[in-house]
């Protein structure tokens, strides 16, 4: 099977600063879930930003479905079928829940299909259906999180990139969020996940990608990474010792 995303020798960094990631390679096939783990500052989030065009790569190639997308604008890359959920809560606070969901189908020309997708998203997240006309900034944290995932459902991307989904969430919400991610993965969408909570992230993934100092250390099936004694001590921290 051919690669959905093929990233080769990628170099990226911010502003006039040094390179944050060096010669990074990453491939993902349809319906795969990969979790990138590594210590703080390893460049995990930077990889996602460079794929999605939020950050322009300095060099290297990024191909999506065989098409070169490196250096394209974020909105163009999104329209190819890549959805990015950044760390910060990505809602439009002064818009209603319905308007937020509608933004998920913004670039869709077919209005009937758009309606269907929004309808489907509301069915999957019934709590939002009860609050369609509420300003999303007034939702609770958990509901805002649901809105972000519901909107991603409405986008129906081929590849979804999720940056630190559990960051700053209460334990109950972490479980809920990983449930959303499992739903996304089971619907056939490929997922690349960056997760500080490496243990939980690897559990949700098929493959674990270990990064350090902007470089790929190795990539293995997720359960093997979980068993790897060195990784357990280095990156999994307290969770591993239990």
């Amino acid at each position, binding site marked *: 099977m051919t690669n959905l995303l093929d990233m080769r020798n990628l170099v990226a960094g911010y502003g006039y600063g040094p390179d944050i990631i060096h010669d990074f390679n990453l491939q993902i096939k349809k319906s795969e879930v990969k979790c990138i783990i590594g210590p703080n500052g390893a460049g995990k989030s930077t990889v996602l930003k460079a794929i999605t065009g939020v950050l322009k790569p300095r060099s290297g190639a990024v191909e999506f479905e065989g098409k070169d997308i490196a250096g394209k604008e974020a*909105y163009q890359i999104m329209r190819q079928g890549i959805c990015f959920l950044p760390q910060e809560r990505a*809602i*439009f606070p002064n818009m209603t829940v319905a308007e937020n969901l*509608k*933004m998920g189908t913004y670039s869709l020309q077919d209005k009937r299909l758009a309606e269907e997708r929004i309808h489907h998203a509301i069915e999957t997240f019934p709590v939002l259906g009860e609050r369609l006309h509420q300003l999303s900034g007034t939702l609770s944290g958990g509901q805002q999180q649901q809105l972000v995932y519901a909107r991603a459902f409405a986008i129906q991307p081929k590849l979804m990139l999720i940056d630190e989904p559990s960051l700053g969430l209460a334990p109950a919400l972490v479980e809920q969020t990983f449930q959303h991610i499992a739903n996304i993965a089971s619907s056939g969408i490929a997922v690349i996940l960056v997760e500080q909570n490496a243990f939980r992230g690897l559990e949700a993934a098929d493959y674990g990608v270990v990064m350090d100092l902007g470089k790929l250390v190795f990539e293995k099936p997720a359960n093997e990474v979980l068993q790897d004694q060195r990784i357990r001590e280095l990156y999994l921290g307290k969770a591993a010792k239990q």
Partner: protein
Amino acid sequence: MMQVLQVVILGLALGFVYALMVSGLTLIFGVMRIVNLAHPILIITGAFVSYWLFILIGLDPILSVPLAAIVVAFLGIVLYKLVFEKDAAKQTYSEMTVLLTFGMAMVIDGILAFFFHNTQRITSPSYATDAIFIGEIFIPTAQLYSGLVSVTIITALALFLKYSNFGVAIRATSQNRTSAELVGVNVKLVCLVSFAIGCGLAGSAGALVSFVFSFFPSRHWEWIAIMMSLVVLGGMGSITGAVIGALILSVVSSLVSAYYSPAWSTMVFFLALFVVLLFRPQGLFGVRVD
């Protein structure tokens, strides 16, 4: 009682014109965080377009509203491409844009003064000196018409932002630029178009101003602070806030003018500016900007 109502109605009519004058300013700030101090001189530019169309071919200033809007919008596109596109529209340089647009205002002021001199002008269509009576209430037609046209344009703007696809994209960009990009909004295009719309609104306000106030190029210095006080009270970036801020301050300043002294009416704007910045810097409807 009747007299109070009279003053309030005059204040409201003028308030809607003020609201139109600041709507473009607050739109541009909302989307790009550009504090456009050149906005008032763009209004004067629009006033000159209407003035000359009236003098040269006798075109009624209300009919030249769209023309003044188009001319100033086009000027806005040129300014945006020359000055703003590279850095200033990135939502991170608000402080820099104050200085940048201040300089720009001086340049446009200088160019206008070079060609047209700082003499007071006003377009004088037949209705400019007329008035109508509703019962005992007297309304000068110039203020009535300009108020009505302003309401129409602001309503059109609000409907455009609320319901049109592009309007929704503009609102999304002003609320969360990265997210807008990530759902497929062409943010660069949104910025350019919002800037053009904001300048077009300045131009249309200029056409109305040309027969309501006498104007000359340097008049804009006096308007900068007044317009800032209106948007600061309403909340920078909020159109609703700008309209409400403009109506409140316009009515209050009319009341002060009628019952205390016209000399003190302008003070209302500056006092409001101080008080709002001290106690509620985000204004009535604004959000705190980090």
